[in-house]
C-alpha cells in the first residue's frame, strides 16, 4: 500500500528538504542507538562472554532446541484442538435449534472474555480438586490455548459462513442435501478458505501465547531460553534478543503463509 496520495511528489526544494529531514531522523535514531549502547556498556552487556554462549552448540542443545520443541509441541497441540473446538462451536452457534445455539454462544463468549492466564491457572492448580489428579503443565497450557483460541476461531468461522452468499446454501438444499451435508460439504469448506488468513493470524497469537506456559513451569522457549541460559551465563538481554528473533522468524513465515493462502483464492 502506498501513501503517496498524502503528499505531492517533491520538487527540487522538497527533495532537498526531505534529504535534510531524513538526515535529522537518522541522527536522532543514531543518538538513541548510542544511548542504548552506552547503557549496555555501563552494565557490561557487550562483553564477549555474554554473547558467545549463544553460538555454542551445547547451549542450543540443552536450552534452545528443547525449548523450541516445547513451544512448538504446545502450539501444534493447541492448533489442532482449537481448530476442532472452533469447528464444533461455530457449527453450534449456527444451529437452528435454540437449545444448541444459546449454550454454544455462551461458551464462546465466556472463554473469549476470560484472560488465558486465568484458564491456565484454573486447569493447573484446580485440577487436583476437580478431577483428583494433578495435570501436567503441558496439559494446562494446551487446555487454556484450546478454549481461548478455539472460541476466537469459532467466531472467525461463523463470520466466514455468514459472509457466504445465501444462494450457496439454497442451491445445496435445492439439490436435496440435508442440513449436515450443506454445512459440511458446502458452507464450511468455503468459510475455511475465505477465513484462512484470519485463522493463521490467530495461530500466530496462539504460538505467542504458548509462552505463558513458563508461569506454570512448562519448559518452553522463553523459559529455557531466557531463564535457563541467563541463569548460567547471566546474559538476560542477549538471550532475550535471540529468543525474540526466533519467535519473529517463525511468526513472519506463518504470516507469509497466510498471505499466500489468501492470495491463492
Amino acid at each position, binding site marked *: 500500500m502506498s501513501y503517496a496520495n498524502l503528499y505531492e511528489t517533491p520538487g527540487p526544494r522538497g527533495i532537498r528538504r526531505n534529504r535534510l529531514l531524513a538526515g535529522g531522523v537518522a541522527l536522532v535514531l543514531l543518538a538513541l542507538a548510542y544511548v542504548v549502547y552506552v547503557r549496555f556498556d555501563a552494565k557490561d552487556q557487550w562483553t564477549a562472554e555474554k554473547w558467545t554462549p549463544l553460538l555454542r552448540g551445547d547451549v542450543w542443545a540443552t536450552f534452545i532446541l528443547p525449548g523450541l520443541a516445547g513451544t512448538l509441541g504446545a502450539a501444534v497441540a493447541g492448533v489442532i484442538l482449537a481448530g476442532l473446538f472452533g469447528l464444533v462451536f461455530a457449527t453450534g452457534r449456527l444451529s437452528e435449534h435454540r437449545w444448541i445455539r444459546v449454550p454454544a454462544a455462551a461458551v464462546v463468549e465466556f472463554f473469549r*472474555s476470560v484472560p488465558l492466564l486465568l484458564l491456565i491457572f484454573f486447569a493447573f492448580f484446580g485440577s487436583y480438586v476437580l478431577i483428583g489428579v494433578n495435570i501436567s503443565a503441558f496439559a494446562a497450557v494446551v487446555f487454556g490455548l484450546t478454549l481461548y483460541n478455539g472460541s476466537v476461531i469459532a467466531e472467525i468461522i461463523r463470520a466466514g459462513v455468514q459472509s457466504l452468499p445465501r444462494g450457496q446454501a439454497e442451491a445445496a438444499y435445492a439439490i436435496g442435501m440435508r442440513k449436515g451435508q450443506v454445512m459440511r460439504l458446502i458452507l464450511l469448506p468455503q468459510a475455511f478458505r475465505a477465513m484462512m488468513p484470519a485463522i493463521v493470524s490467530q495461530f500466530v497469537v496462539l504460538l505467542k501465547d504458548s509462552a505463558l506456559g513458563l508461569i506454570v513451569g512448562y519448559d518452553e522457549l522463553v523459559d529455557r531460553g531466557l531463564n535457563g541460559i541467563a541463569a548460567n551465563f547471566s546474559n538476560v538481554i542477549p538471550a532475550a534478543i535471540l529468543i525474540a528473533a526466533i*519467535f519473529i522468524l517463525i511468526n513472519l513465515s506463518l504470516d507469509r503463509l497466510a498471505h499466500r493462502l489468501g492470495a491463492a483464492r
Partner: protein
Amino acid sequence: MEALLTERDTILAAFWMTIRLTAVSALGSLVLGTLLAAMRVAPLASLRAAANCYVTVARNTPLTLVLLFTGLGVGANLGVELSDDIATNNYWLAVIGLTAYTSAFVCEALRSGLNTVPVGQAEAARSLGLGFVQTLRLITLPQAFRAVVAPLGSILIALTKNTTIALVVGVSEASVRMREMIETYGDQVIEIFLGFAAGFVLLCLPMGLLFGWLSRRMAVAR
C-alpha cells in the same frame, strides 16, 4: 463462595491494579500508536522504515517475553529505576512493556483506518495548500480514528486481559491474587475461578458495548 466474600477487599484491590495498568497503558499506547502510524505514512523513508521495524518486532514477540525483557532486562540488568518503591517501579516497568506491545497493534489499526479515507480527502486538503502534517492532523487522521473505533475497542479489551501477564514483572494484579487464593482456599477452586472470570467479564463487557455504540455513532457516513 465464602472465600470470595471474606477476601473481597483484597480482590477489589487486585482488580483496581488491573484497571490502573489498563488505563495508563491504554493512554500510552494510543499516543505512541498514533505517532507510529504517522511515521508509517510519512514521506521520509527512514521514518517509515523505523516504524515498520518497530511494529514487526513488537507484534511478533510474545508479550511474556516483552514484559520479562522490561522487568529483568531493562529493570534489573540495566538498572533503570523509575521509583524508589519496588512496587511502583514494577508497576511502571509493566506499563512500559504493555505500552510498547499494544502500541504496535494500535498503529496497525490506525493504518488500516487511514486506508479507508478516500484519496480525494487528502487531495482536496493538498489543493488547499495544507502540508503533510496538516493533512494528517486535520483531515485524514480524524477520519481514520472514527473508522477504527471498533478495532481500538478490541485492542483495549485484549489489553485488559493482557495485564494479567504483568505478574512476571511482579505486579500483584488479579491473576496473582487468584493464584494465591487457589493456594489458600484449595477446596473452592471453581468459585474462585468463576469469581475472577466474572470480574474480567464485568470489565470487558461494558467496554465492548461502549465501543460498539461509539463506532456506530462515530462512523463516517459515505
